[in-house]
């Protein structure tokens, strides 16, 4: 092994051995503009002192792209979702519009309250799953694959109808055990780098993790247009990426683990405005 490679391996091991404090630069914020843009948590036992949308952690150039609906390439997917909404699909010859008519009216608030409890399935379902339930049960159409352009577009279009409304998932009743499961996952260290969601998004938001300026990891803007991928990215794909980035084995999109995490993360953003389709790095 060359000396440089040996040095790399030692550095890797040092981080993996739990020296997470070394890896996270304690330089203080170099983008102080995010401060002062938080909303108050709903109660004093909340795990964050303030709730701040990921919007405020990005540069002004990135925020400018989100501020202008024309300029925001995420809207191509929203428009595609709008077209699919009225397009009949499946053996029943129906479209979404056949039952739900005008999405702006019927879908208002729906995206802000996801995931929601399903009595039929005895578990929470998120927006992607609900879309596919409608497709298979009401439209007799084949469900769309997770990550497909159609499913992401429709998820974005439906959630867009809640834009500006406060995130407000129900976490009581049958959701309580899923909420606890999500909370447990959020604080569990993962992967070779041994980091939990909380390591970055609760203890170090507003600081740099190598080249990355950390946000609170809120989900109010999803599906988001990522500058990196230059397309809309659904939430479970991003969470999959987070676990991959700490060199862990990601849960599968739409798995129970990610559903529980989605519920818990949505709760951590209680009151934030839905920003779908947000623009992030």
């Amino acid at each position, binding site marked *: 092994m060359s000396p*440089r490679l040996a040095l790399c391996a030692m550095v890797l091991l040092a981080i993996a051995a739990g020296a997470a404090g070394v890896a996270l630069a304690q330089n203080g914020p170099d983008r102080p503009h995010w401060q002062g843009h938080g909303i108050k948590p709903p109660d004093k036992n909340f795990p964050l002192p303030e709730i701040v949308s990921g919007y405020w952690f990005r540069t002004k150039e990135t925020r400018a*792209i989100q501020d202008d609906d024309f300029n925001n390439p995420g809207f191509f997917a929203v428009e595609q979702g709008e077209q699919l909404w009225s397009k009949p699909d499946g053996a029943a010859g129906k479209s979404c519009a056949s039952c739900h008519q005008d999405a702006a009216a019927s879908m208002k608030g729906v995206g802000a309250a996801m995931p929601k409890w399903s009595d039929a399935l005895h578990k929470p379902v998120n927006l992607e799953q609900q879309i596919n339930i409608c497709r298979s049960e009401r439209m007799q159409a084949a469900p769309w694959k997770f990550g497909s352009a159609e499913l992401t577009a429709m998820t974005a279009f439906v959630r867009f109808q809640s834009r500006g409304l406060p995130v407000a998932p129900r976490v009581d009743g049958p959701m309580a055990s899923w909420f606890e499961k999500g909370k447990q996952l959020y604080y569990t260290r993962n992967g070779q780098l041994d980091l939990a969601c909380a390591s970055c998004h609760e203890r170090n938001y507003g600081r740099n993790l190598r080249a*990355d300026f950390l946000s609170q990891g809120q989900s109010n803007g999803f599906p988001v247009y990522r500058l990196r991928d230059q397309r809309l990215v659904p939430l479970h794909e991003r969470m999959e990426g987070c676990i991959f980035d700490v*060199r862990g084995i990601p849960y599968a999109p739409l798995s129970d683990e990610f559903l529980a995490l989605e519920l818990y993360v949505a709760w951590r953003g209680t009151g934030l405005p839905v920003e779908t389709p947000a623009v992030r790095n």
Partner: protein
Amino acid sequence: MSRRLNRREALNVGVGAFAAGLASAAGPARALNDYAGEIKKFTGGKTPVEGRVKLELPELAENGNTVPLSVAVDGLAGEGAHVQEILVVAPANPNARVIRFRFSALSVPEASTRIRLAATQDVIAVAKLSDGTFFSASRQIKVTIGGCGG
């Protein structure tokens, strides 16, 4: 961008990234392309005069895949010459040429777009005027790779 690497591949990518990071401490992270040759082709061998071109880029790229860029040329009012073209080159990209804007006599000599930059570098814009003169500007932009954003 495929993310479905197995564990060993992921480790290799990680080590490679560290090695590249260490290499960059000693010098430029990437070999430069033939941007000087591209500029020469554009100007027919003339050396552009620095000035008059305004090149706007963020100081730090949020992500190298989508970087807003604006170019403008100042101080031409009433001169008779107008801007014909502006070439943008990125010396540390895989390919030097980024975009070539073409203007008409109706144009206000300004344009904006979004570009991809592979590494920290000095991006250069060269303007060709209708009287055969060339002007240029360069602007450094930091492009970082790594951290959990990927």
